């Protein structure tokens, strides 16, 4: 039976399916109904993988919504991100994942198993949600955080808390600070938070950067610069959790 991994995140639900050569992936917004978004992701991935809709697949669910969905197996996002990142960047011994509502750092054994991990606490500071809120205030979209021209001066943002940072951003806009500089400052504060989390778990070696925020090249470069370590965001970085779930569900890892 084909193995499908579904990663039900706070913002997006991701699906992954192994077609014998590579992973086919799909993404759909989670919205307010994680159960439905998961069902949608399974249907989408079946279509993409040319599996007739009435054929059964074995589903392994992960992500914060994993328990609301009737999957064949449930595995936490820590273990799945580790397995997915290990598949995508086999040399990496450290995974940095910045998603919609939390961020985490995982250190890996050479075979991709979790050696240790740490998550941010009870708060969306330093995550995709933080950037999304700020984008709303700046009248721009998340995409605008990606194309910041080189040489833009960085406006430091001192508040890590979403609520305080909002007031700070409003103040800066009122002072006429250019939007790009503020965007860069916000990315820098997310990067700094990630670096702090990294330093508590792993000190050296390549980093595989996953989650929705891994698509932001500026953020990746900032983390690389701050740590002096190679930070790789593979093309399928956002799907690492779903890929890991499919790998674990299919017993491709550790033979279980």
């Amino acid at each position, binding site marked *: 039976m084909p193995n499908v991994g579904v990663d039900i995140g706070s913002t997006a639900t991701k699906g992954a399916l192994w077609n014998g050569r590579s992973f086919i992936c799909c993404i759909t917004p989670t919205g307010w109904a994680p159960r439905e978004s998961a069902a949608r992701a399974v249907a989408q991935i079946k279509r993409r993988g040319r599996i007739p809709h009435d054929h059964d697949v074995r589903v392994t669910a992960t992500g*914060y919504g994993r*328990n609301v969905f009737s999957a064949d197996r*449930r*595995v*936490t*996002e*820590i*273990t799945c991100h580790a397995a997915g990142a290990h598949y995508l960047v086999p040399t990496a011994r450290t995974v940095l994942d910045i998603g919609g509502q*939390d961020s985490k750092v995982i250190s890996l054994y050479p075979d991709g*198993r*979790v*050696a240790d*991990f740490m*998550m941010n*606490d*009870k708060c969306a500071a330093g995550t995709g949600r933080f950037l999304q809120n700020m984008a709303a205030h700046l009248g721009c979209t998340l995409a605008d955080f990606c194309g910041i021209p080189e040489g833009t001066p960085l406006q430091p943002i001192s508040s890590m808390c979403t609520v305080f940072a909002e007031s700070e951003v409003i103040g800066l806009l009122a002072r006429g600070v250019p939007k790009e500089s503020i965007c860069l400052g916000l990315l820098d504060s997310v990067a700094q938070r990630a670096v702090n989390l990294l330093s508590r778990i792993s000190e050296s070696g390549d980093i595989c950067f996953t989650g929705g925020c891994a698509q932001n090249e500026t953020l990746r470069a900032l983390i690389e610069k701050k740590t002096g370590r190679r930070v790789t965001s593979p093309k399928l970085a956002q799907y690492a959790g779903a890929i890991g779930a499919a790998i674990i569900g299919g017993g491709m890892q550790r033979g279980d």
Partner: protein
Amino acid sequence: MNDIDEIFEEMREGVRNAPVAVKELKEAGRPIVGTYCTFTPWELINAAGGIAVSLCSTSEKPISAAEKHLPRNLCPLIKSSYGFALTDTCPYFHFCDMVVGETTCDGKKKMYELLDALRPTHVMQLPQTTEHTKSLELWKYEIIRLKEVLEERFDVRITDEKLSASIALRNSINAAALRFYNLSTLPDAVVTGKEIMLVSDYLKFTFDYEKAIASVNALTDRLLENYMEGKRRVNVATHRILITGCPMGKSLEKVVEAIEAPECASTVVGFENCGNLKCAHYKVSEDIPPIDALSEKYLSIPCSVMSPNKERIKLLRHYIKKYRADGVAEVILQACHTYNVESYSVRTVLAGDGAQYIAVETDYSQGDVGQLATRLGAFAEML
């Protein structure tokens, strides 16, 4: 319901009825002394003819009321304790004649200063090291001072005979507790973590001490018998987790529930916490003068306020081995600086031993049950 579940249900009922029991004891003229901490020598209170009772401190409900006087970024245990007193919603506080506290952490000792306005509060000055003989001398002086305070307030004389008798009684209570906890030395788990918490509570809140000892011993016997018959009550194909850290209580059952949820496939086999192994493991000597014996036992409690706190590592290692723990989960309350800082040393030492360790920081709200499930679930997947 089988007979073992019935015994547990009776214990639950006993804990539920504890406020009525305290009310009746109060009406019968018994002195009621409220306590918060494992450092309080209950033996002295019993020897004064009094009832020592653990005051409410583990619910989120009175915290907002406490924040009228206390800062927000203070540990929930301290805020909850004070809030219960301030709103008069803890039946035990309501009935108590006085409170005994100790200078453990900074937050607590300053809170006790405020608490004194609500109920007479005697604070024992706790030395924070066991490394100098002067510490023991000072602590012995504090034990004698508490004895004198109790004698004066309740107009009794605490003789050595009375004290020795109450030491023997409390040793029997702790022995019954330890015998029950030590069911976890068996290869398969016998009880769940929530049941261990229940038995600790039952022993704390049953004031007919002989009855409490007999019930717990009977429960342990019955569980052993059941086990020897080859019956297993708890899913045996699970990881065995030892809990450590801040005092556990009602609001922190969420941690035990997350560990024992089916997705996590784990069972809590012991609690190296206050009111549990931290207390029951250390016996009061019955071979030396009673005041000396009390001083020695209570100063040896490995609370994170002690510096250095080498004894805690010894106790942890002892029970990791004894209970064959696959992993150690440390529960840290937000703003509990001493446990939070000590967490790094515990992690480092246990990593050196090859033991798996996770620390979770939480408070009394139920808002983080999802995050706890993920963290503890991932920890179980690592084992």
